[in-house]
C-alpha cells in the first residue's frame, strides 16, 4: 500500500485523532524556553518517545514527530543537520508507534521557516521552497507516513511548502494555518483565500491549528468549511493563556465538550495544539467514541479568485483592468525593456483606484525574457495591490512560472480549442489550482457563427472537466470582432455568450474595446456594447477602468440588475460628482476626464501661466497644477528653459530652506514630487518631438543586503532624478554582486548605498569592499539613520550624505 492509500484508508474511519501539544510536554519536563526542541531527538530520545507513546495510548491515530522547527534557518547554530534531526525525530516516533499502536501513522511535522517571505520579509519564494524540499526529502526517506504543515500564517509560505512536498515525495499532505479572532492570519490572509488556494493545490486534508481555543475557533472552522471539500482538521489550543502565568484556561473535559459541538462542521481529523496533553486527547477520543462523528456533505463552492487578502466572488459582473499590456503602447514596451517596474506598478494602482476587481497582466514584448519579466512583475504587483491577477500569456512556460509564484488563486488567460493549447495549458492550471479562460477559437480561427463558438466552448469545458478542473472555474471568451469590418459579428458574439452562459452553464468574459476599431467616438460604441454584453450574461468585463463611461456602464448596470442593493455603491461613487461642463471624448478612444480643475489662485490665470507659476507650484507642493502648468508652458517656452529657469531654481530654493530648517522633510518631498510630475510632462513632450534625452549622468542606488528600509533611498532617488541624473534603482535587500554588476554594466561613476540598521552596516561595508575589489571607477556615497561621517570613512565610502539634499550636492560635484 502506498503512503497515500494508507492515509485515505485511515480517513475511511468515522474520525481520525491526532496528538496534542509537544512543546507543552517538553516544557513540563524542564526544557528551557528558547532552546531548540529538535535537539532532544539526539540528546534525550527517551523523553520524546515517551511523549509519543502517551499520545498513542490516549487514542492518537497520527502523531507529529518532533520536527516542527527542523529547517536549515532555525537549526543554523545548533550543530546538527536538518537530515540528522528529522531522521532521528521520525525514528523515535516510529518506535513509539511500533510499541503502542501498530496501525498508527507518523507525520513529518513542519512549521514556518521562521523568516518572512518577500515582499514583507527577505526570503524569496524559491529559497523557501528549497528549505522545505530538504526537510521533506529527509522525512520521506526516514519513513514518515505523511507531511503536516502547521501554524502557517503566510499563504505564499504554505504554497512553497506544499509544492516542495508534492514535487519531492509521494507523501499525503495535511496543511493547517493559524487564524486570529479577526478571521485573518497575522499576515492578513483570509480563510477563503486559504481554502481556495490550498484546496486548489490539491492537498489531502486542510485545517486550522493553534492561536485560540476550540470555542473561539468556531467561526474560523465554520468559514473554512464553506471554501473546501477536502477533509477538515481542527487542532485548537487549550483555550487562551493567562498572560501572567501562561496557563491555558480550558480543561481536558471542557475541551472535549467544545469539540463535540464543533462536529457539526463535518470535521474529520481532531487534535490539540498548545496547552493540550494526552489527557485532552483521551477525552476527545472518548467523546468521539461515545457520540460518533458527523460526516460532511458536499458543499457547492462559490466561483472565485483571490489574493491572500482579497477574494473576488464572481456572482455579479466584475471588472478586469486591461492596462498592463504592452500591445500597441510604446511607453509600456520601453518600460518593459528597461525593467521599469515603477511604471507598471503605477498602471496597476491607477486601475485599482478606478475600481478594477482583477488585473490582467501581460508583459509579452519581443526581445525580453518573458518568463523572468512575468515572475518579477507578479511579485512586484502583489507587493502593492491586493486584487487578484489574471496571468496573460500565450507561452505555457510563462504561465507556469507565474502560477508558481502567484500568491493566491489566479485566473489564467488563456487556453483555446486547439489541441496543442489544451494539451499544454490545462495540466498546469490543474496543478496550481487556477481558474481558466477559454477562447472560443481553434486551429481554424474564430468561427463566424456564434453556435460554432459555443461548440468550441463545450469542447474546452469537457477537456477541463476530464482533467479535474471544476466547471465553475471556466470562463469563456466568445471574442469581440470589429463591427466596422463585420457588422453582424456583434450579434453572433452576444448570441454565443448567452448560450455559453445559459446552456453550458459556464461563466463568461469579454474584452470589449475591439468592437469600435476604426470608428470615431469609440468610447460611445464601447460602453453601449459593454451594456449589451452585460445584459446577455457577461461576468467578467475586460475594460480600461480609467475611462469613466466604461466604469459607469458597469456601475449603472449593477443598480438596474439588482446587484448593487439599494444602489449603495453607485451613490457612494457618484453622489459628490462635480458637474462636468462638457464631456470631452476624442476619437482615439480616450475620454477627457480632465475638465475638473482645481481651486487654487492659479486658477484665475488659466491659460496664461508664467515660468514663475511653476516655481510657485513646486514650492507649494501642488502636483496636479505643476503638471498642468508645465503642459501650458511648453506651448510658449523651450523645454530646457522651463527646466533651468523654473524647476531647478525652485528645487534649489526648497533644498536651501530644508537645510535651514524652515521647510521640513514632507514639504521637501512634496515639492520634489511636483517637479517629477513636471519632468514627466517634459519627457513625454520631448519623446513626441523626437528630441534627445538629457542625462547629467547615471547613478546606481540601493538599500544594502539584509535591509528592507527604502523610504530614505526613494527620497534620494526622486531628488536626484529632479536634477537630471539618471537613477538606476536596484531596490532594497540588494546582493553585493548586483550592485557591482549594475555599476559595471552601465558604466556608472557614482553609487549611493543606504542602510538603516546597525546590523546592516556590515552589508554596506561588504558592498563597498566588493566594489573596490573589482577596480571600478566609481565613487560611493552612503547614508542612513545610524550612519556617521566617521563610520562612512571607516568603511571606505567616498562621501557621507546626511540627507537627500546632500546627496544631490555630492552628485553635482562628482558628475558635474
Amino acid at each position, binding site marked *: 500500500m502506498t503512503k497515500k492509500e494508507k492515509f485515505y484508508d485511515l480517513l475511511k474511519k468515522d474520525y481520525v485523532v491526532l496528538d496534542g501539544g509537544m512543546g507543552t510536554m517538553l516544557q513540563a519536563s524542564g526544557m528551557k524556553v528558547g532552546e531548540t526542541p529538535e535537539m532532544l531527538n539526539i540528546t534525550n530520545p527517551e523523553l520524546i518517545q515517551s511523549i509519543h507513546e502517551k499520545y498513542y495510548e490516549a487514542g492518537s491515530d497520527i502523531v507529529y514527530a518532533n520536527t516542527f522547527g527542523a529547517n536549515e534557518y532555525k537549526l543554523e547554530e545548533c550543530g546538527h543537520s536538518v537530515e540528522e534531526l528529522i531522521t532521528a525525530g521520525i525514528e523515535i516516533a516510529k518506535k513509539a508507534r511500533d510499541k503502542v499502536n501498530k496501525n498508527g501513522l507518523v507525520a513529518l511535522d513542519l512549521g514556518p521557516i*521562521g523568516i518572512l517571505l518577500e515582499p514583507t520579509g527577505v526570503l524569496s519564494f524559491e529559497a523557501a521552497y528549497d528549505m522545505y524540499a530538504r526537510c521533506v526529502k529527509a522525512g520521506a526517506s526516514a519513513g514518515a507516513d505523511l507531511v503536516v504543515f502547521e501554524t502557517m500564517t503566510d499563504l505564499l509560505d504554505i504554497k512553497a511548502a506544499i509544492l516542495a512536498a508534492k514535487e519531492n515525495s509521494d507523501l499525503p499532505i495535511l496543511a493547517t494555518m493559524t487564524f486570529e479572532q479577526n478571521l485573518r492570519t497575522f499576515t492578513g490572509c483570509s480563510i477563503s483565500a486559504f481554502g481556495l488556494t490550498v484546496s486548489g493545490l490539491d492537498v489531502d486534508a486542510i485545517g486550522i491549528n493553534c492561536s485560540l481555543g476550540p470555542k473561539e475557533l468556531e467561526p474560523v472552522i465554520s468559514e473554512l468549511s464553506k471554501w473546501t471539500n477536502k477533509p477538515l482538521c481542527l487542532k485548537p489550543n487549550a483555550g487562551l493563556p493567562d498572560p501572567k502565568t501562561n496557563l491555558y484556561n480550558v480543561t481536558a473535559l471542557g475541551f472535549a465538550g467544545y469539540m463535540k459541538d464543533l462536529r457539526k462542521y463535518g470535521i474529520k481529523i481532531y487534535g490539540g495544539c498548545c496547552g493540550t496533553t494526552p489527557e485532552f486527547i483521551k477525552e476527545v477520543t472518548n467523546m468521539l467514541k461515545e457520540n460518533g462523528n458527523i460526516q460532511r456533505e458536499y458543499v457547492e463552492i462559490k466561483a472565485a479568485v483571490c489574493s491572500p487578502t482579497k477574494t473576488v466572488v464572481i456572482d455579479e459582473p466584475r471588472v478586469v483592468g486591461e492596462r498592463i499590456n504592452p500591445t500597441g503602447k510604446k511607453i509600456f514596451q520601453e518600460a518593459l525593456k528597461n525593467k521599469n517596474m515603477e511604471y507598471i506598478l503605477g498602471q496597476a494602482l491607477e486601475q485599482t483606484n478606478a475600481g478594477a476587481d482583477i488585473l490582467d497582466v501581460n508583459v509579452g514584448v519581443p526581445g525580453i525574457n518573458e518568463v523572468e519579466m512575468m515572475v518579477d512583475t507578479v511579485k512586484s504587483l502583489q507587493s502593492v495591490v491586493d486584487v487578484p491577477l489574471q496571468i496573460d500569456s500565450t507561452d505555457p512556460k510563462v504561465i507556469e512560472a507565474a502560477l508558481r509564484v502567484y500568491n493566491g488563486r489566479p485566473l489564467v488567460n488563456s487556453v483555446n480549442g486547439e489541441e496543442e493549447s489544451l494539451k499544454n495549458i490545462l495540466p498546469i492550471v490543474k496543478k496550481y489550482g487556477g481558474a481558466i479562460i477559454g477562447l472560443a477559437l481553434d486551429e481554424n480561427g474564430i468561427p463566424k457563427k456564434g453556435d460554432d463558438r459555443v461548440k468550441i466552448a463545450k469542447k474546452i469545458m469537457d477537456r477541463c472537466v476530464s482533467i479535474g478542473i471544476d466547471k465553475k472555474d471556466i470562463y469563456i471568451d466568445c471574442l469581440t470582432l470589429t463591427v466596422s469590418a463585420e457588422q453582424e459579428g456583434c450579434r453572433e458574439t452576444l448570441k454565443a455568450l448567452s448560450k455559453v452562459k445559459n446552456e453550458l452553464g459556464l461563466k463568461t468574459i469579454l474584452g470589449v474595446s475591439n468592437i469600435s476599431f476604426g470608428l470615431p467616438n469609440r468610447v460611445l460604441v464601447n460602453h453601449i456594447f459593454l451594456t449589451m454584453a452585460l445584459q446577455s450574461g457577461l461576468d467578467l468585463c475586460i475594460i480600461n477602468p480609467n475611462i469613466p463611461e466604461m466604469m459607469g456602464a458597469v456601475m449603472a448596470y449593477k443598480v438596474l440588475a439588482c446587484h448593487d442593493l439599494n444602489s449603495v455603491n453607485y451613490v457612494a461613487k457618484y453622489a459628490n460628482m462635480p458637474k462636468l461642463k462638457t464631456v470631452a471624448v476624442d476619437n482615439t478612444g480616450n475620454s477627457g476626464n480632465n475638465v475638473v480643475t482645481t481651486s487654487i489662485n492659479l486658477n484665475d490665470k488659466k491659460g496664461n501661466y508664467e515660468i514663475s507659476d511653476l516655481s510657485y507650484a513646486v514650492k507649494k507642493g501642488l502636483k496636479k497644477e505643476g503638471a498642468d502648468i508645465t503642459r501650458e508652458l511648453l506651448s510658449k517656452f523651450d523645454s530646457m528653459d522651463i527646466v533651468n529657469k523654473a524647476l531647478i531654481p525652485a528645487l534649489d530654493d526648497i533644498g536651501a530652506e530644508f537645510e535651514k530648517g524652515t521647510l521640513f522633510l514632507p514639504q521637501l518631498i512634496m515639492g520634489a514630487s511636483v517637479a517629477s510630475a513636471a519632468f514627466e510632462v517634459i519627457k513625454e513632450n520631448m519623446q513626441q518631438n523626437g528630441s534627445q534625452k538629457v542625462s547629467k549622468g547615471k547613478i546606481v542606488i540601493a538599500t544594502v543586503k539584509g535591509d528592507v528600509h527604502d523610504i530614505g533611498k526613494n527620497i534620494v532617488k526622486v531628488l536626484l532624478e529632479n536634477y537630471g541624473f539618471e537613477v538606476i534603482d536596484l531596490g532594497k535587500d540588494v546582493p553585493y554582486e548586483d550592485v557591482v554588476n549594475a555599476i559595471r554594466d552601465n558604466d556608472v561613476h557614482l553609487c549611493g548605498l543606504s542602510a538603516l540598521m546597525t*546590523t*546592516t552596516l556590515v552589508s554596506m561595508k561588504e558592498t563597498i569592499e566588493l566594489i573596490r575589489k573589482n577596480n571600478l571607477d566609481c565613487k560611493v556615497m552612503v547614508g542612513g539613520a545610524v550612519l556617521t561621517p566617521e563610520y562612512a570613512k571607516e568603511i571606505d565610502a567616498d562621501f557621507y550624505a546626511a540627507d537627500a539634499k546632500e546627496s544631490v550636492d555630492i552628485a553635482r560635484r562628482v558628475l558635474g
Partner: protein
Amino acid sequence: MEKIILDPIDKKEALRYLGYRNTKLDDNILSLIDECEERVRQIATPRYVYKVFDFEEKEDGIILEDTNLYMKGNSITNHLKNCEKAIGIAVTIGEGIDREIRVLSHTNLAKSVVFDAFASACVEQVCEKVEDILRKEFKGLNMTFRFGIGYGDLSLSYQKNFIKVLDATRKIGINVGTTDMMIPTKSVTAIIGLTSKEIPRMNRNCRDCNLNGNCNIQKSGNRCM
C-alpha cells in the same frame, strides 16, 4: 488579555520624528498629516505579549531564568540593578502598516514619509498603554523604564532569541530576519525591571543612545523621549 484601543496619535511626536521645527505649515501639509493620523489608526492592529522572569545577575550581564537567554552588557545589568524580576515585552501594530507604506511609496512619497512617522508614534503609544496595563497588573511594585533590545550596549543580536523566549512569533506575529530586524517593522521589544524597592527615577537619555550625536531629532533641538 486586555484589548488596546488606540487614542488619537500624538501629532507633535510624529512631526518631531520628521525633524519638524515649528515652522508654519501649508494647508495641504496639514491635511496630509490629518489623513495619515487617521489612516494609521485604521490599519494598525495593536498586539502585545509579556512574560515575567526571575533573573540571575552575572558579572557581565543577566540570565533570564528557565530560558537560555544570557544577555551581556553593562547597561542592561545596571538597568535591572535593585530589581527582583524582569518583564519582557514585545509590541507590534501589524504588517498592514508595512504594506501601506509600500503602496504609498509608489503613489505618494511625501505621504509615505508622514505615514511612517505616525506609525512610529502609534507603536510608541501602544507601548505606553502596555506599560499602563502592567502598572495595574503589578500594583504596589515599581517599574523601571522600557529598555529596548539594542539600546545602550545591549546587542541587537539578542533579538531573535528574545522573540523566541516570549513566543512572540506565534502569539503576535513578530518575525526576526537574518539581520535581527523585526517584521512587522513597527514593533518594539523591551525589558522592564520590577521591584518592591524605591528606585531612583531613571529615564532613557541621549547619552546611552546609539544615535547620540548623529540624530535628526537631536539636531532639530528635540528629544525622542
